[in-house]
């Protein structure tokens, strides 16, 4: 259901298409989109260097989220393959996902405590953050003990069902936003950025 719903969002974006620009192009859109999706995420970006703890917590949290989903996929496939993960891999995953869940809960606390952020937030922001962090925590618990299987799959199910409802669908829109931004700046020859003339 989750995949179908997210795919619907994605297909709608494709169907709507990119903006038709009648102005005369000045730069290289392909290079700008590539820059937008990669280096621009850290290059001279205030949301990164002015907010180092939040930025790194966010990065770890998102990496942890992707790893958790990959792990879920592995567990599904492993029902057929029956592979046993090496112990060191299990411990790396436990350490990484514990840190990631900790970052998730820290961001949740920040959202509740920080006044400008709280005033910007709605129920969906808190629920989304909580569900993802709990899913990561449940992944850690399941890796530690197979007896936590029920709570693990329950947390995964709730998260997957909720995903298309709220802001977690930015999984799809994030990449589209980076594309549009690259297109906009690339068309006007702003990105990739030039070295300032000395």
């Amino acid at each position, binding site marked *: 259901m989750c995949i179908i719903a997210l795919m619907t*969002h994605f297909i*709608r*974006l*494709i169907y*709507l*298409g*990119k*903006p*038709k*620009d*009648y*102005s*005369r192009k*000045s*730069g290289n859109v392909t290079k700008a989109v590539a820059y*937008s999706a990669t280096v*621009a995420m850290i290059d*001279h*970006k*205030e*949301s*990164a260097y*002015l*907010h180092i703890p*939040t*930025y790194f917590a*966010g990065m770890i949290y998102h990496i942890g989220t992707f790893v958790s989903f990959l792990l879920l996929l592995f567990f599904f496939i492993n029902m057929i393959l029956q592979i046993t993960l090496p112990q060191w891999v299990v411990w790396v995953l436990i350490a990484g996902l514990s840190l990631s869940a900790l970052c998730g809960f820290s961001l949740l606390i920040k959202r509740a405590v*920080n*006044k*400008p*952020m709280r*005033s*910007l*937030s*709605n*129920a*969906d*922001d808190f*629920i989304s953050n909580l569900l993802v962090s709990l899913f990561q925590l449940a992944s850690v618990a399941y890796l530690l003990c197979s007896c936590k299987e029920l709570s693990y799959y329950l947390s995964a199910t709730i998260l997957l069902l909720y995903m298309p*409802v*709220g*802001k977690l*669908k*930015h999984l*799809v*829109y*994030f990449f*589209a*936003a*980076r594309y*549009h*931004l690259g297109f*906009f700046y690339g068309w*006007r*020859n*702003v990105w990739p*950025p*030039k070295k*300032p*003339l000395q």
Partner: protein
Amino acid sequence: MKKLTKEQIDKALKILRMPEDSKLVTHLNACVHCGLCATSCVYFLTMKEDKYVPARKVELVASLYRRYCTLTGKIIPKLVNARELDEKMAEEMIDLLYGACTICGRCVKHCSIGVDIAYVVKVGRQMLAAMDLVPPSLQSTVDAALNTGNNMGITTEEFTDTIQWMEEELIDEMQDENARIPLDEKNKNILYTLNPREPKFFPLSISAMAKIFYAAKESWTLSTSMYDVTNYGYYSGKNEHAAIIAKKLYDEVKKLNTNTLVLGECGHGSRSTRWEGPNYLSTEYDFTTLTVVEIINDYIRSSRIKLDKTIINEKVTIHDPCNLVRNGGLLNEIRFAVKSAVADVVEMDPYGNDNFCCGGGGGQLAMSEYNERRLNIGAIKAEQIRKTKATIVVTPCHNCIDQLTQLNHHYKLNIKIKSIAEIVADALVVEN
């Protein structure tokens, strides 16, 4: 505010319900409310109020999108903060989308996701414009352009008198009876446009550019009926009006049969003509559109004009107009022109694509109801300038020049503010 009619609401929501492409849907769904954009915005940095966080402005439009265009927003609006479009909402939108955003796009570049916040603000303005809720001061500027051909309502007689006066000055300075400021001449290489502030308040910037054209032996003309490069329809959000203004300029290029339209020193004017104009008209222009900065640089690079860097002995800094640099790609073009004319150039901190808005963009200078805010947010620019210890600030935008002039007075900066044409003309070596 009067109660919104169903017709007004329907017109506004049509913009959200019938997106032309994936851009709007993307940006309305992408914001994760991290709030990190706050520290990139001149409004939040100077006034420290939560309502000025750029994401809050996106949220106004996105909450309407969720309420009327998504299943979750229709069924459980409270969960996702899906709001009704009512009078309270419209008032909030007017205050924040018109009165608290210069559409400078600084937050866009620094957004952790890549949400085009300025674009969403513009969509919000389009919705308000569809409900006829454009602030009256801004609308009157648009109306002046629609009715008279320029946003200051300058009569043709007044304009012609000013140009003739400038032509006499040019003849005196060049000591050449043949030095001219041509009007309405057909088949010239260039149709040059102005910000109406120039004939009204800063005529010397016209004579500065005329001096450069004279030195470059350029074939050019001004139009008496359509010389206005600005397009406040871009800021009001009424695209129909923006299209009428863009069409007037397009038609003038055709009427005078010129092959290059040179955009006078105006950030939003350049943007709305070069980048937005063809889209307003759904037409690819078959003539070249260049900014003043680019044409001057062309003259310098091809040695059509000569500059002497030793003439200007003061420290000069550059203010980057948001529409020309961060949103127009002219970062190094501006620097090339200024550094060709001046020896001692010092950069602001930050500068270029990261430079702060002066506070005059987004139509703020036309909306007198927000004057106090506009001068407050200018504190950042004033401090940037003060730190450079420069005595001259150069910027290729008359909107910025107007705001910087007011900041100069308000914050007692004791600086001179010049356009690119003026600084280049000051360093120009004319060989007769």
